[in-house]
């Protein structure tokens, strides 16, 4: 996967590059608007991550020009908190998604994955981890012919875990991805939701099926490990 990152703040660019390379993405980084526009026009990337405030040429301007040229690469806008108005403009101009700073790289990764799935045209209706299947249409988990329905929150949460199997996701990351970043971080809503998912998965296990289990990582968060 080729990702183009156009971001002028070195620290932010570093942690994004690091995080995405860890996910085996091939990241190209440009630190100013004009360079970024040049690189984007080549149309050789699968996804473009575009900061709005850039030296040389601002992100919205690049976005507009690219869309006018017919470049339809998925674009994710990065906005600082004080540019919330720009996200609206950006979405109207043809951006596919936006992410407000500060954010978790994990969240960015999830958004990129979702975009690529949508954009690839082959809408993946089933996520599989081991013997466990997640049906995105019926919002249910299936395991060898048996299935249990999930609520929308349970579904988003499990999907997020299944998209990054064997990886620890913190409560904060899960909360942000499923409930949005304005949800009160002091709640135990993630733990309760995980508990319910486990309960539902256990009902499948009782039928003697081997499924992945959601592990708690003490003080940090959760991980879906494949047994």
């Amino acid at each position, binding site marked *: 996967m080729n990702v183009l990152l156009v971001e002028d703040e070195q620290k932010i660019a570093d942690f994004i590059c690091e995080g995405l390379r860890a996910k085996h993405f091939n990241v190209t980084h440009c630190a100013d608007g004009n360079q970024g526009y040049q690189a984007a026009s080549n149309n050789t990337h699968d996804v473009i991550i575009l900061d709005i405030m850039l030296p040389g040429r601002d992100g919205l301007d690049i976005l507009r020009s690219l869309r006018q040229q017919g470049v339809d690469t998925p674009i994710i806008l990065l906005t600082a*908190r*004080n540019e*919330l*108005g*720009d*996200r*609206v*403009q950006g*979405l*109207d101009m043809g951006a596919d998604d936006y992410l*407000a700073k*500060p954010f978790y790289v994990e969240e960015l990764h999830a958004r990129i994955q979702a975009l690529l799935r949508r954009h690839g045209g082959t809408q993946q209706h089933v996520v599989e981890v081991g013997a466990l299947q997640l049906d995105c249409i019926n919002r249910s988990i299936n395991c060898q012919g048996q299935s249990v329905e999930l*609520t*929308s*929150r349970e579904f988003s949460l499990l999907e997020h875990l299944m998209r990054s199997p064997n990886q620890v996701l*913190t*409560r*904060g990351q899960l*909360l*942000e991805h499923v*409930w*949005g*970043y*304005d*949800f*009160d*971080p*002091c*709640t*135990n*809503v993630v733990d*309760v*939701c995980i508990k*319910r998912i486990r309960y539902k998965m256990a009902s499948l296990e009782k039928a003697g099926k081997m499924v992945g289990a959601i592990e708690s*990582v*003490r*003080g*940090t*968060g959760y991980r879906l490990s494949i047994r």
Partner: protein
Amino acid sequence: MYFRTRIFAISILTVTAVLALVISLSWSRIMTVELTNLDSRLCMEAKRLIPKHTLLDVNNSADNISNLRDTSLSGSRLMTDLTDKLRVSSPNQLMISVGSVEQGFITAPTGGDVQDVISRLHWVSAEPLALTDNNKANAVCQFAFFEHQQNQWRASLFQASNQQSFIAVDVAATTSQLTSTLQAALIVVIPFSLLLSILGAWFIATNTIRPINRLHKAMDKVTQKDLSHRLPEHKEDKEFKMLIDAYNTMLDRLEDSFRQVSRFTADAAHELKTPLTVLRGKLEQAVLSENPSQLDLNAILDEVGHLSAMTRKLLLLSQADSGSMALHFEPINITELVDELIADMTLLSDELELDCEIEKDLITKGDIVLLKQLLNNLLVNVMRYSLTHKVVTIHARQNESVIEVVISNFCLPILNDVRVKLFNRFYRGEPAYTQGISGSGLGLSLAREIARAHGGDLTLEPSESEVVTMRLLLPIVK
């Protein structure tokens, strides 16, 4: 273009126009009067050309005419007399003739073909002239204008019984004295009046601009000092009083919003201090310990989450204040959002008793991110302050053209003076209620701003002191 110059120009133009109008009207009036006088003089002189006895004795007319020809008309005394009376300078500016109706005119030697002139005239008949003798009531004077040698002449024809006399005079010559007198007067009057009008205009302009200058100086002083000063109103005219009033009102509003902004900033800074202090402490601990545990780092992460949520709320509020809350409108199913909200509530508390009545397919147009934030803020409030084992009611329905979401929960009794402050920013109720409950005090005010930005509203419904009922209204957009 200066206002003063404009006022000056307008005043001068007005005065000059009035002056020109008055002069031309009086000139034409004087001329009309002069011509009327001339007519009556001409008539008198024409009558005098006919000797008295001929008027009395009709039969001797022929003798009289010959008599006249011999004496009066040929005599220069008559001409001198006439030039004097008609105020002309030479006999060439006069024509006279006398005759009888039957025999025609006897031309006087005053140059020009008088007979020819008379035959071409269109007479304007006049009133019958009452003669001094009273027995000749049918004597008439007739008048006419004619051109002779490029000059305008006025002629008078006097007819009494069988006698007639004709007398004509060059108009310009006879009025020349008057014209020159008037011109001499105007040459003095016009510059003088112009000078006066310039002075007057300058006075008007200066007078008009003076209060404006005064105001300008006062305003300069006010803005130099600070927003708390106001313009004095005494000794000003009514219109300027109104202007000063408006300016002072504007200053009031400015000062208010300025105060509000400073207070808001101070409050915000204060509120941000708390999570920052916690964050700093925890980070220091983590640094000091040899290898920080996941628990510490997680606590730090939570605190950062707090900070992010707070700055986001502050930003949205400041956008709402400046009226620039940006919304990405799309159709939104409020029913689904409320269902999600209820699901979250049940996740958050096992002991929660819910009484829900949610109508299907309540669709509005709105910004999904902000509407979720709004509902979240309401939910957070319910979860924080609602008493356990008490019912929380959530009703969502369509009411004519609006969606009405009413959320009601039991809580510790709230006094009325606390109720009115619930939507105030950074207001967190009495310490007794908020004991051990975290929160920024921004949630409700932000929720209301979001509702208003969507063309709806969020209100606190009147209820008993231990119940809080929030009513959210959103427009229905199918």
